[in-house]
């Protein structure tokens, strides 16, 4: 318990210390998770909407498949990406293993199904109505999609926040494909895992608090943006 309080104090100290390494870790975390979330969003939001408003054979199966992918364990994603991009793997020539790029790829695999799934669910009910309005007013396919995104923005926002939360908090995948290499691929979560295994609970909790503060900040910004629009 004391350690939790100590950790909170350390967190502030840590932030105020302007330690280059800490800022490097925080910066890399943000870079990796935001890139992964943004790329995922661009693909997953339209996919989730299409899944909801289009009818096609095997749709029920695809939906359940997406739901299942929402529980993809990060370690497995990490492992598969590792095997694909490792030196001897089929995509080894790209040489991205143990780089932030590999971490982004792995997180995209984790975040995408989550965003697709939540967007799908939010669109299912109201999507048809919006689509009808767009079509009757002469919108083409692309314009209809844009309108759907605009109208369903609250739900889409929730989806992205959830996906981003997954990205910033997960450790299994980035640990395997990034390797937690100091000064290179060490992010907040892998640092926490390492510190914890070294028994340095205080610093671990301190970084955890920094992570949460950052999440709060990012959520607040997203939230503001979304509020202003509506």
């Amino acid at each position: 318990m004391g350690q939790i309080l100590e950790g909170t104090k350390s967190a502030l100290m840590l932030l105020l210390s302007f330690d280059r390494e800490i800022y490097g870790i925080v910066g890399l975390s943000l870079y990796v998770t935001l890139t992964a979330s943004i790329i995922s969003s661009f693909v997953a939001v339209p996919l989730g909407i299409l899944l909801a408003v289009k009818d096609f054979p095997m749709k029920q199966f695809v939906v359940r498949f997406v739901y299942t992918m929402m529980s993809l364990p990060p370690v497995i994603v990490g492992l598969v990406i590792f095997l694909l991009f490792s030196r001897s793997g089929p995509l080894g020539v790209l040489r991205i293993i143990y780089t932030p790029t590999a971490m982004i790829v792995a997180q995209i695999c984790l975040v995408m199904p989550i965003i697709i799934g939540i967007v799908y669910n939010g669109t299912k009910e109201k999507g048809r109505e919006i689509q009808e309005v767009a079509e009757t007013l002469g919108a083409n396919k692309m314009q209809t999609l844009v309108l759907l995104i605009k109208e369903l923005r609250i739900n889409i926002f929730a989806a992205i926040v959830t996906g981003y939360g997954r990205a910033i908090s997960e450790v299994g995948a980035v640990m395997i494909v990034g390797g937690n290499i100091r000064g290179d691929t060490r992010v907040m979560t892998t640092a926490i895992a390492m510190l914890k295994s070294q028994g340095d609970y205080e610093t671990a909790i301190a970084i955890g608090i920094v992570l949460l503060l950052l999440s709060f900040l990012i959520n607040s910004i997203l939230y503001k943006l979304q509020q202003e629009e509506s």
Partner: protein
Amino acid sequence: SQGAIDDHKESGQSTGNSILLATTTSTENSGLLDDILPILTEDTGVEVKVVAVGTGQALQMGKDGEVDVILAHSKKAEDEFVQEDHGIQRFDVMYNDFVLIGPKDDPADIGVLAKNDILKALSIFQNTEETFLSRGDDSGTHKMELQLWETLGIDPKGRWYVSAGQGMGAVIQMTNEMLGYTLSDRATYLSMKHNLDLDIILEGDGMLFNQYGVIAVNPNKNVQINYEGAMILIEWLLSEKGQGLIGEFGQSEFGQSLFIPNAK
């Protein structure tokens, strides 16, 4: 195309002066590598990227050609690795030793009953059903422990034998929490000692000797392996300067060396 691969080589992470080192969690957890590797980079220009994994995975990554060099502590497995041509040659780098740690008051009186005989100590666990935690993760430490049981002819089973399947640090914490006993390398134990209610119960048995070795991965595995960089690292580790730095590590903080250099 060849051109594309060359392009990658220039920006790639293990060409030029950068190598990938797979090592066990104990070297990372103790902080040794963080301490000495920056000096290596200064001296030689070789940048070492450390991936800390279990011994099992470290050797597997070597076999797959994923890393350039391995630093581990499971001599038997390492020798096999070289014999199977996955590595060029194995070098001794340093050693430390394993210690049996347990609650400060030593409820099973193992310190007294077994003196410095680890085999005797282990046999007591089976009889008294005092909690013993095993790494259970196929690591160097785990392999050493299994060998001890084998020598004893005991197949450890039962509620007293807790197989954790985790790294050294985590298992020490579990031991602390469950007020049990476990085998740890001295370095990791010392680096965590200040947060623990655990003491060294038994040490000094010759069977608890823990030798670290370094192996460069066979460059024939694929074109991406940086054999030259690996050899620079190995030579530096075995050099007088490298060995000296290893010996100094821990002196200021613990008043003793955590690793004793013993390159031949």
